[in-house]
């Protein structure tokens, strides 16, 4: 969600160069290029000096020997509290039952995401970027305990063993971590340590790796931003412009200030803030507020008009001056290839989507002069520190962040403009004296504040060879680019005028690798409507486009869609090898072929964030709406650390994608979002949720992510199942029209 790789992972598990190039771009953050400084140096500048203790910034050990792992990432549901702490526990041979995990502080110098260069969670990278770092931290701590025991017992270190936090020697000597703690802390950490051979893992890959937060979350004790109550704290809401790009012209706060509990009313950059002693008073104050808006630079079109413009752009009938077509995959000579009758034409329309996390955006801020503390479900720590630092005029590392659980994110809490964080800091700055201010967005604020999955239109033409397989592929994508909306993001993610997040999944597709002639281009029209990564990012539209086009080609060639894919993966060579494996596994476990009573199966395969996922779904139209009863998922995510949580992410990712495919859309009427809450923005409910069964491809490769890759595949397999039933292709989403 944060950064999307344009290159697939190499078989050796090395990360694509594109990710590292992003780090260079990150050095531009804040508009200043500091030559010779790493992004982490810039983002960490001003950080307080911290003594992390003998075992470094990731491991703390209590006097009783219990190990606490510091999670530099955000646990927003994806289960990284479990996976990350299991990596440490495995190499340490700690007692997993007593291992605890906490969110770490914001400090880019020690907690940078090694795939981003700065501290942040996204792009399904938490496990992947921490893998070697946490294994090394765990193995180092283990070596220190072993050495301490060897010294105390006067035995050779190689003869000392560790199991479940107990250090032992064949002589019968034995001590738990707590008993050796003081001595181990004095051991000089070894410069290099031997990591375990994965075949010797006893925790990783087992069902024992379970969540550490389930009890807190089942008892209402888990702490979210909404739950922060500090002495003397104020609550703020903001009246936002009804249209994207609108500004405050004037406001009358006479009535608002008379509402009991309202403390202050003032304008900030994005609207008018109402500060009160509680949520209900703040909201009543805002209702009493009269604001006149300046919409001169606001989006005033309807989304229907915008989509119509996108379609015209794709057909070459309209060329807005704010962008130009950018080729992203080119092979051979496409001239004149798409004029004949042997060509399949397909178009696809995708609406704006809200993330609609269960906990709306919010942030607690305290400001006194240039001193600033934030308490919230931080996801983009470094970017938020930089944005806050610019408001209070300080160094980014000096902005203190206490990270809490986030009530869902799906990409939303890490926005390129730190939108709600900046609002909170601006309000707290005005309040001053370090008085805590909780900025609360209502559901309506959250849903109408944009940062949507961009609207998109694809136009595909595939010339079919005599054998029924693609001979030439023309692809036009028209989609808003959020990377281009911010110079900082553009420097990281736009190359040759291509924002990689707008085309990933079409770019890099094994189907294009298997096609001799390709002409694929993207156009990114501008709008004041803010857009953002949304769980699986570009794949949310490229996966359904590629996979549904394949099913149409297979039908045209009268070849079974599974067989058709297998042939294309073979033709794609290495680019299709992992796809073939997950496809075969999903089909084997799901069964393939006709079903009874009007149910049909659909299949899809897609790679995102280094993981490849296939699923087979069973669908039927009931009472006019598609229903999915069962989804069989196969996933290749490298070494599986927490199989139970990988399954949870496939289950949840499938529901998230299914919800969007069936119901998700934000439409604009004269620039105003028409969906404001769950009564108008329909999402998947218990009675509509399928049973998801997950199968993991055994792998010796380093782990890749699972938070996002499950999501886009159902958005493709469901249309394929419906196509199998009716022979009518799907050309627009959502499938259930409001």
């Amino acid at each position: 969600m944060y950064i999307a790789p344009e290159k697939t992972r190499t078989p050796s598990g090395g990360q694509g160069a594109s990710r590292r190039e992003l780090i260079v771009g990150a050095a531009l953050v804040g508009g200043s290029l500091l030559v010779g400084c790493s992004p982490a140096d810039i983002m960490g500048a001003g950080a307080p000096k911290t003594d992390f203790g003998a075992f470094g910034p990731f491991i703390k050990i209590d006097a009783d020997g219990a190990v606490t792992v510091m999670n530099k990432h955000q646990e927003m549901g994806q289960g990284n509290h479990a996976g990350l702490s299991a990596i440490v526990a495995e190499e340490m041979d700690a007692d997993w039952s007593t291992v605890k995990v906490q969110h770490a502080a914001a400090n880019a110098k020690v907690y940078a995401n090694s795939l981003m260069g700065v501290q942040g969670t996204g792009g399904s990278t938490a496990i992947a970027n921490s893998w070697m770092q946490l294994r090394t931290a765990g193995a180092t701590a283990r070596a220190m305990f072993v050495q301490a025991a060897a010294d105390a017992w006067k035995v050779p270190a190689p003869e000392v063993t560790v199991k479940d936090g107990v250090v032992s020697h064949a002589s019968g000597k034995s001590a738990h971590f707590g008993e050796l703690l003081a001595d181990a802390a004095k051991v000089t950490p070894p410069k290099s340590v031997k990591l375990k051979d994965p075949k010797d893992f006893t925790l990783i890959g087992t069902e024992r790796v379970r969540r550490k937060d389930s009890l807190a979350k089942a008892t209402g004790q888990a702490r979210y931003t909404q739950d922060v109550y500090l002495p003397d704290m104020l609550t703020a809401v903001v009246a936002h412009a009804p249209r994207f790009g609108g500004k405050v012209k004037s406001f009358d706060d006479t009535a608002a200030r008379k509402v009991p509990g309202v403390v202050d009313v003032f304008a900030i950059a994005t609207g008018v803030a109402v500060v009160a002693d509680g949520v209900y008073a703040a909201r009543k104050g805002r209702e009493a507020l009269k604001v006149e808006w300046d919409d001169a630079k606001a989006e005033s079109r309807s989304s229907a008009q915008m989509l119509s413009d996108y379609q015209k752009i794709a057909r070459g009938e309209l060329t807005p001056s704010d962008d130009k077509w950018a080729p992203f995959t080119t092979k051979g000579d496409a001239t004149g290839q798409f004029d004949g009758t042997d060509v399949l034409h397909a178009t696809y329309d995708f609406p704006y989507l809200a993330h609609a996390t269960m906990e709306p955006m919010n942030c607690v801020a305290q400001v006194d002069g240039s001193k600033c503390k934030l308490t919230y479900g931080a996801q983009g720590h470094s970017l938020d520190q930089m944005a806050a630092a610019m408001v209070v005029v300080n160094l980014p590392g000096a902005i203190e962040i206490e990270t809490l659980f986030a009530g869902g994110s799906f990409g939303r809490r890490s926005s390129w403009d730190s939108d709600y964080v900046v609002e909170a800091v601006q309000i707290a700055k005005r309040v001053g004296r370090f008085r805590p201010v909780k900025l609360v967005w209502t559901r309506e604020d959250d849903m109408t504040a944009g940062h949507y999955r961009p609207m998109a239109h694809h136009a595909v033409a595939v010339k079919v060879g005599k054998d029924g397989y693609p001979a030439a592929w023309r692809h036009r994508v028209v989609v808003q680019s959020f990377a281009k909306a911010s110079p900082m993001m553009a420097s990281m993610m736009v190359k040759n005028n291509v924002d990689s997040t707008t085309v990933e999944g079409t770019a890099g597709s094994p189907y294009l690798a298997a096609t001799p002639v390709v002409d694929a281009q993207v156009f990114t029209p501008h709008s004041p409507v803010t857009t953002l990564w949304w769980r699986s990012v570009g794949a949310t539209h490229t996966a359904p486009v590629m996979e549904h086009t394949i099913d149409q080609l297979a039908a045209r060639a009268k070849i079974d869609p599974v067989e058709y894919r297998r042939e294309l993966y073979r033709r794609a060579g290495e680019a299709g090898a992992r796809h073939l494996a997950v496809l075969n596994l999903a089909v084997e476990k799901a069964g393939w072929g006709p079903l009874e009573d009007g149910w049909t199966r659909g299949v899809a395969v897609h790679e995102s964030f280094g993981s490849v996922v296939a699923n087979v779904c069973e669908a039927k139209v009931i009472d006019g709406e598609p229903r999915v009863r069962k989804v069989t998922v196969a996933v290749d995510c490298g070494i599986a650390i927490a199989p139970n949580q990988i399954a949870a992410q496939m289950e949840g990712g499938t529901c998230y994608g299914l919800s969007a495919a069936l119901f998700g859309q934000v439409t604009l009427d004269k620039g105003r979002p028409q969906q404001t809450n769950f009564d108008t923005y329909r999402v998947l409910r218990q009675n509509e949720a399928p049973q998801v069964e997950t199968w993991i491809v055994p792998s010796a490769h380093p782990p890749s992510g699972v938070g996002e890759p499950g999501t886009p595949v159902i958005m493709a397999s469901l249309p394929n199942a419906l196509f199998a039933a009716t022979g009518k292709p799907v050309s627009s989403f959502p499938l259930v029209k409001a």
Partner: protein
Amino acid sequence: MSIELEINGVKRQVAAEADTPLLWVLRDELHMTGTKYGCGIAQCGACTVHLDGQPVRSCQTPVGSVGAGKITTIEGLGGTHPLQASWVKHDVPQCGYCQSGQIMSAAALLAATPKPTDTDIDAAMSGNLCRCGAYQRIRAAIKDASGELAVTAKA
């Protein structure tokens, strides 16, 4: 105005306008944060509490309408309810924000229907949204707590 409420068996005095939703009294006045705000219009179920044993959406329950009714919140289940153990066993939560409401709806379901069918679960639980999509584990955990372990549950 001062209002007396009985919450989890304890009488509490709160100062609030009568039209204030019970949700905001629980949270802003009493700092009982287990009950969550999700939508404010009774569409998501995150704010579900029991009023005299019945599940209600506290965001749409004016505090002045509660009277002598007995309120039970997630804190009132005490961490010992069979559903809470089942939630842990199945690792139901992801982000966890909706789970207080899910468990309160499920607890009311089991109190009225100790052995719920899938249809019963659909009827009782479809008002509680989970954006993480933990639905199948919620279903499995309810069945497990009721003694009817779902055969399809993997967790």
